[in-house]
Each structure stands twice: as C-alpha cells, then as structure tokens.
C-alpha cells in the first residue's frame, strides 16, 4: 500500500456516512481472464446478448414441461405450489391477473429466468435446447408463438410480448423507446 493511499484512508475516517468522497483502497483485486469472466457471466439481455446456442419448439417443450415443471405449475401452467404461468386477460379492472403472456415485457426474461432458477428443485439443470423448448412451450400456452415455431438466439429476442410498452420507469431514466 502506498503512503498516499494510506493518507486517504485516514482522511475518510471522520465522515459519518458512506459518502461519495473518493477513497482509495489497497488495490488488491486480481485480474481475471476473458474466459473466466465468460464462464461466470450469465446475463441475458432483451436484445439477445448472452443467449446460448441451441434451439427448441413448443412441440419439443411439451414433454420437458410435463416432466420437469408441471408438478409445481400445473399441467397447463394454471399454477400449483408454484405460480401460474399463463395469463391472457386485460391488465385493467379490479381482478387483473398478471402472468407471462399478458405482463412480462420481454421473452428473453422468461428464458433467462428458467435457465437460472428453474426447475426449482434442480436449478440450472436444463440444457440450452430444453430451455428454448420449454420457453417456446410456455409462450405457446400464452398464445404468443405457434406450436411449431422454433426459438433460438436470433428468434427469441424478436418475439413481441403484448405488454412490452406497458411499463413506466419511476426512479430511473427511461430511454426514449423502451425495449
């Protein structure tokens, strides 16, 4: 540690809160290779960045869903110990019911969440193909894609979710054209 950064540490000790004042640390971060970063980077963005190779359709996904999802979410996505995954009704009115089809703004979110966190008893266990397939099956149940439409890293971000423009950002600056 340099003497200069030590002086900065001392200078900050009297401050009451976590302030924006710049403090310098001892610089102990270790550099990482691009490959290790890639291995740990699981972010998937609405424009498709981060989506893996692979493909699957609702037809393929039906079986994955029945075997790995239906026990908690119901045979047709109507819900069980896990929430319902199908929603088509309007979002206005006192009994508006939010679910994938009528509420979620982007299809990549459905893929990303399934890939990270589902099935809840074995998260991260689905192959990329199975994840595309079960995503397609859920979008099919919600009336958004056809039964034979195969999804992959190019077609998934292009799926137009009905509620994509339904959100108003409150504590962050919303870009001109919401994604």
């Amino acid at each position, binding site marked *: 540690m340099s003497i200069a950064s030590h002086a900065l*540490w001392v200078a*900050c000790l009297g*401050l009451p*809160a*976590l*302030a*924006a004042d*710049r*403090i*310098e*640390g*001892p610089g*102990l*971060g*270790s*550099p*990482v290779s691009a490959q290790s*970063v890639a291995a*740990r*980077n*699981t*972010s998937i*963005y*609405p424009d498709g960045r981060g989506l893996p190779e692979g493909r699957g359709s609702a037809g393929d996904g039906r079986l994955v869903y029945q075997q790995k999802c239906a026990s*908690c979410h119901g045979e047709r996505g109507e*819900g*069980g*110990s*896990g*929430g*319902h995954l199908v929603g088509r009704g*309007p*979002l*206005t009115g006192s009994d*508006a019911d*939010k679910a*994938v089809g009528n*509420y*979620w*703004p*982007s299809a990549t*979110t*459905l893929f*990303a*969440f399934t890939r*990270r*966190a589902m099935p*809840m*008893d074995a*998260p*991260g266990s689905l192959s990329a193909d199975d994840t595309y397939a079960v995503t397609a099956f859920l979008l099919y149940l919600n009336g958004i894609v056809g039964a034979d439409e195969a999804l992959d890293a190019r077609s998934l971000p292009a799926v137009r979710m009905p509620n994509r423009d*339904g*959100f*108003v*950002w*409150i*504590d*962050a600056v919303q*870009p001109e054209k919401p*994604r």
Partner: protein
Amino acid sequence: MPPVNPSCRAIARCVQSGGAVRAFSVVLDCADTMISPDTQREHSAAVAAQEALSMERWSRSRLNADDQAPVAGGGLLDRRLFLKRGLVFSGAGALAWSSGAAGADQAALPSLRVPGRGFSNYGQPSEQEKRAIRWISANRAVPGNGVSWSPLHALEGIITPSGLHFERHHNGVPDIRIDAHRLLIHGMVERALTFSLADLARYPMRSQMLFVECGGNSNSGWNKEPLQSRAGYLHGLASCSEWAGVPLAVVLDEAGIDPAAKWLIAEGADAAAIHISIPLKKAMDDCMLALYQNGERIRPENGYPLRLIVPGWEGILSIKWLQRLEVAAEPVMARNETAKYTELLPSGKSRMFTFVMDAKSVITSPSPGDTLRSHGLYEVRGLAWSGRGRIRRVDVSADAGKTWAPAQLQEPVLPMCFTRFRIPWNWRGETAVLKSRAIDESGYVQPERDKLVAERGRNGYFHYNAIAAWQVDEDGEVTHVYR
C-alpha cells in the same frame, strides 16, 4: 419444511376463521403457502399482562392537571410528559423499595442462594423469550421459498437483532465457503477483477445503521379487509442493522468504470441466482459491500459472507451472497425487475424501477394482539423510516386521524434508518383508533390508505406504505382496522 414456528398457531387459526387465508399468500410469488402453527395468543396475553402491571404502577402515581391536559383527541398527552414525571417516580420508587412485601420476596429468590450457570461462547435469548421470533411463511413444495417477518411488536429501540432480521429467500439459504468465495467485477470496466473476502477485509471500512425493507412489505394492506395479525407480521419485512463493510465505489473505481456505463447488475450465489439492475449513480453514491451485521459477520440467511447494501431502496436490490457485479449500459431486465417488483396501476400501465422506499411508520405498542388491562397512562411507541433520508416528524392520532399530535423522536434520528417515536396517552376506556403518520426530510407525508388506493388501485402488490390503524376497543383489545 422449515422448523415449525411455535408462535404462529393462533394467528393461523384466527386468520382462517376470518376467512382471509389468501391474505397470507400475498407476500409470496406463488399461489399457495404453508402457514406454520402458533401459540401467539397465550404469549401476547402474558406480555400484555406484564405490561399492564407496570402501566398501572405508573398511572397510580399522581398526575397534575397540566400534565393531563390532552394535546389531541382521544387522550394523547404532551410528548415530554414522561420526562417531567421521571422526577416524581424516582421518589415514589425509593419508597416502594424500602417498605415491604416486595423486599421480602426478593430476599427469598433462589437465584440469590444458588450459584449461577457458567459462561457461554455465544449467548442466546432467555428461555422465557423464545417466542419473540420470526414468523415463517414458506412454500410447501419448496421450503426455501418464502418469507419470515421480524417481530417488530416484540422489540424495542431501533436495531433488529440479527437472528430476527426478516428473510425473503427465493430458493433457500446457500452454504458458502468464505475462503472460496470470489466477487467478480466485470463488464464496462478497464479491467475485470476478482476479490476474495480476505482482500476485501483489508479495504477501508465504514459502518452505518440502515433499514432494509422488502418491496413487498405490508402488502396485505392492499387486501379488501384488514388482516388480523401482529404488527411485525404485517409490517416486519423491514429490519434495521448496523452494516459494516467497504464502500462499493472504492472497488468499482479500482476496476475503472467506462464513462458510458449507467447500470450495475448484481448477482447472488444462491440457488435462485437472483440478479438485479441498479443505477450506477446510486452504486457510486452510497452503496456498501457489507461483511458485518450488528458487529459480527453477516448471518447466513442475511447474505454471508458478502451482501450488497443499497441504502433506502427496496430490499431485492441488497443482493445477498453477492458474487458478481457487471457494469452495463442498460438494465438486464431480470424477472425480479419486470414480472415482480413492478406495480400494476388501474390504467393497465405498471410502475417499474420503483426503488425508493417511501416513508412509513407503524405503532408497535400497543398493537394488534395486545390487550390493555387497565385504564390510565400508556406510552404509544413505534418505528418510522424513509428511503429518502431522515424522519422529520411523526404525528400520532388516537381518534382515527381527526386530530394529531407530534410524537417525541428518540435520538439518533439517522437517514434511511429506523427512528423510534413515543408519545404518552391516557386511555380512559373508550374505543380509540391509534394511527401514526411519518413525514420525512424531503417533505413526503405518509398517505392515508384511501388516498394510496385511489392513486394506485389494489393490484400493485408492492410498495404499500399507507398509515395503519389499530383500534382499541372498550375491553382493551387491539385489532387492525381500516379507518
């Protein structure tokens, strides 16, 4: 199944009989929840009996006419009353000690004659306090999916004991080896870096007392009928700790942020792999990489060994088990910032990225489940907090909001931290409705429920912060009402 929580049977029972079982599941994302059994009612009766005794002692001593002059309807008294009366008490107290039966009982106490227990490496609450506990509501198929509420009604002061800090886990509490854990910082930075916990421990640290509140806290308030439960089990997805760690800006600066970056994506190492987007400005302003909570290492259920703390903003952002920070140009649009933690409005549009926790207050004593055993002087006590900074004032009403009086704010009054408020109240046995209303330093005023529901409808699910009303009936029973 989580260990069955012994203090919940009565609540489950009374809620079921009220026909409002659904209300409990509203805090969860799933359709169905398990309600643990409970013996809360006996417990609260015992607590109330003890409290009533000490209250009675206070109220038996003389009140002069000035002291008794109410400052608002329903018997609210000047907030400085107890300060003045403290003098009177010390004299009366001395008399009681020297004179009588109480002294004799004390001398016969076995604890005076039998050597006590030995030391312990880690202290536990008294066996007699085992019912001041978190109340768990978890998914029956996935025991690690659910919440547990802090028993705010059973606590005093402003710090929540670490073991009673609320929990919201999406897929359980992970076991993480502190030696193997590495925080990765990457994305729009000059150099991607990793940090071990030993590395971070050598950085300059700060500690700050801050509340953490789940965006879904208090959300049974959207229900058509008021849910009958303890104050903590309605509003206790909020807790307050002294967090200590490294200012996040220090480590981000070390990685070198691309000036075009605007967001930071934070990710946990749990089985839900929770990730969330945070505006980079907030990350640089006042966020913390926390290693310690209330003086000790963070408890596993609160993020051991590393938790991101995002002061004043909804709890989902304060990522537990933090393992990855990605500097980005835009939000990642994770499920927990799109499908959840957004609020549907009557118009059909939804509020998104509603980060700030608006000012809220709740009276913790007396509160639902308590029974006042005698008329006379009580201290109305509660907690207030705001994500916008300090609490400036808390008003209390004993007549359902017709008239208000300012409560005493107990020091310290810190930004984005629980603030304890108190006001004396002379209950003469009539039906009273107690309310508290927080006003923060930005001028924001906690709204009445009617106003909040008129603005937001009842389908918003998150960010419910309306004024809560507790009704004290003629028998002294306290219930939750909408007034």
